[in-house]
């Protein structure tokens, strides 16, 4: 059996006749509805007809300005949500670990630390510099957590990885704070960035990070098929002609790049990468070729909805989306822990 056939075979097994096409359509629809909701609802209540007028004919009153400011924000939320969800799919697939998430694994905190170092010591200001620092930090943190979490018996078990991630997050967070405290002006930028939000979106920033996300998506697509086979175990996958090391490298890079790009844009937003793949897996099974695109759209939808909720429930202020996702994601994390049997933990 060639590796292509092997991939196809495991895909057939994983698919279980769960009508993934329909779920993909549903996810796309959900993302579209979320995007519309994100433009219509906000911390300022605006009539539907006003919204329509602002989009079609322009206008320079407050309502029109508010509606127009929601458009870059919506685009950013869709993009970041998709990137984080795909990152979660890759990291969960490659570590065969149900708790893998860029936030839990400390990848966000590595990106955050390097961005703060960049602002404080190298006076970086542009989004392009942010993304490079963010990528470096995310890569270093991911490598470190993975290495530490893999030591000892049993390889990278969920418990070891989660603990390594939590500990690394705590450690890097302290260093970040120590750098920030004497620098009030950096602190003022960071303290809002650190919560994780899409409220300060600029289309130009989003565009600048877009190539990184596109590159991440290409890597995801390359890895998706072989990840199915990797799910059978390293030896079985190698036996079926898969280059295990290369698959792991591609999938991990994809996960890290996507998480780093999302973090550079929106700050550390937790749990989207954990929650979305789990929910999608419930309905379409674990064929990565479907899991990946459906998760991308579902993640875009979820993050956008979370942002809308944060804007609506705290009127006239707003709750940053990072807080909403943590409050949704925490219970889902606990649910995942509870549903796994002993040897998976």
């Amino acid at each position, binding site marked *: 059996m060639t590796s292509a056939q092997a991939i196809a075979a495991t895909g057939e097994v994983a698919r279980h006749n769960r009508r993934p096409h329909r779920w993909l359509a549903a996810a796309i629809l959900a993302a579209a509805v979320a995007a519309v909701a994100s433009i219509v609802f906000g911390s300022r209540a605006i009539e539907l007809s006003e919204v329509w007028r602002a989009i079609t004919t322009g206008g320079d009153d407050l309502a029109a300005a508010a509606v127009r400011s929601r458009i870059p924000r919506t685009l950013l939320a869709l993009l970041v949500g998709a990137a984080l969800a795909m990152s979660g799919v890759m990291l969960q697939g490659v570590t065969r670990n149900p708790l893998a998430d860029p936030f839990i694994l400390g990848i966000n905190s590595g990106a955050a630390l390097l961005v703060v170092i960049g602002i404080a010591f190298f006076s970086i200001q542009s989004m392009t510099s942010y993304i490079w620092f963010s990528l470096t930090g995310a890569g270093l943190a991911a490598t470190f957590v993975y290495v530490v979490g893999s030591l000892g018996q049993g390889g990278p078990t969920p418990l070891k990885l989660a603990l390594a991630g939590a500990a690394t997050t705590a450690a890097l967070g302290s260093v970040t704070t120590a750098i920030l405290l004497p620098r009030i002006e950096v602190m003022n930028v960071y303290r*809002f960035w650190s919560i994780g939000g899409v409220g300060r979106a600029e289309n130009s920033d989003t565009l600048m990070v877009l190539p990184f996300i596109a590159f991440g998506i290409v890597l995801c697509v390359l890895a998706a098929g072989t990840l199915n086979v990797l799910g059978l175990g390293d030896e079985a996958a190698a036996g079926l002609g898969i280059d295990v090391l290369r698959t792991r490298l591609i999938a991990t890079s994809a996960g890290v790049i996507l998480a780093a790009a999302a973090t550079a844009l929106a700050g550390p937003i937790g749990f989207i990468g954990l929650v979305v793949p789990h929910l999608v897996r419930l309905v379409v099974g674990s064929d990565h070729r479907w899991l990946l695109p459906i998760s991308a759209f579902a993640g875009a939808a979820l993050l956008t909805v979370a942002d809308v909720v944060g804007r609506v429930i705290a009127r006239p202020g707003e709750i940053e989306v990072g807080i909403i996702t943590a409050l949704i994601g925490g219970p889902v994390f606990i649910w995942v822990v509870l549903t796994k049997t002993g040897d998976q*933990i």
Partner: protein
Amino acid sequence: MSALERPKTTAAAIERVATVRRRATFRARVVNGVLIGALLLAFSFSLAFGERIYSAAEVGRFLAGQPVPGAAFTIGELRLPRALLAILAGAAFALAGVTFQTLLRNPLASPDIIGITNGASVAALFMIIVVGASGLAVSAAAVAAGIGIAFAIYLLAARAGVVGTRLILIGIGVAAMANSATLYLLSSASRWDLQGAMRWLSGSLNLASWEDVAVLAIVSAVLFPAVLALGQGLALLRLGDDQAAGLGVNVERSRRLLVLTTVALAAFATAATGPITFVAFMSGPIAARLIGPRQQVLLPAGLIGALLVLSADLIGQFAFSNRYPVGVVTGVLGAPFLIYLMIRSQRVRGSI
């Protein structure tokens, strides 16, 4: 005879065990003595040192109740409550940490990693910002939240069978949620200054007052002896449940009482200083290394906790051109140790 030679008779074997034990006990006494000495030294230093430096004689006279010019405010109102709070909170965090680590047989299972102090912090902050309460009401809410969260984590973990690892993972999830809630409460407060924020995120002594000291001192006077007494069983619990039960420890009852007391301690300390990073987690393992195996680890852990907070606060205040809150210093100092322990605990299971 040398303790290392192979004993030839039963009497010789008994003699050898006795020698080893005497040495271990002696070592424990020396370690505790040195720690108490170091703590006293750090305490006097923290009273004497600052913007205005007092001599040892002046500090002594002030403590004896004699008038020293200017000291009534600088020492009496600023440094003394700060130092006392550091000692009490440090010891409280350490006792809570070492108890959890021993009971769950994992060095990473301390209340600051599994979300208990973070939860207490959220409750305290909620009372201050939303309800507008202060003093004892804040402490009470923090304690109630700490115990409630510990109970909830325990119930969730116990329901699914295996307690240890699940409990830690669930705790990590709870800690992440609690930290988000803290950030939200801080950002939604009408106006918040950095000191206040740092206190609830990583712990700070900058707002120490006699009121905080009084509450924590009364609580400690009741709970420290209780923990130390219950801890007699804890040393046996380190051997494992079955062995401990065989040696006559009522395992479940000791465990519940200990958890309840130490969660209360950690929560009261959090209400006073915020969750000072890594103190709960670091003190026990350091103590276990200093004092050696099979010795009572609670007392040295408490002393180390107090010493850590006190000296980290001195470092944070005076070692750099900027003043850092104590939690940031313990966080940076603790980070490498945390990583070392994490690596080590992968290889050697079941011990601190």
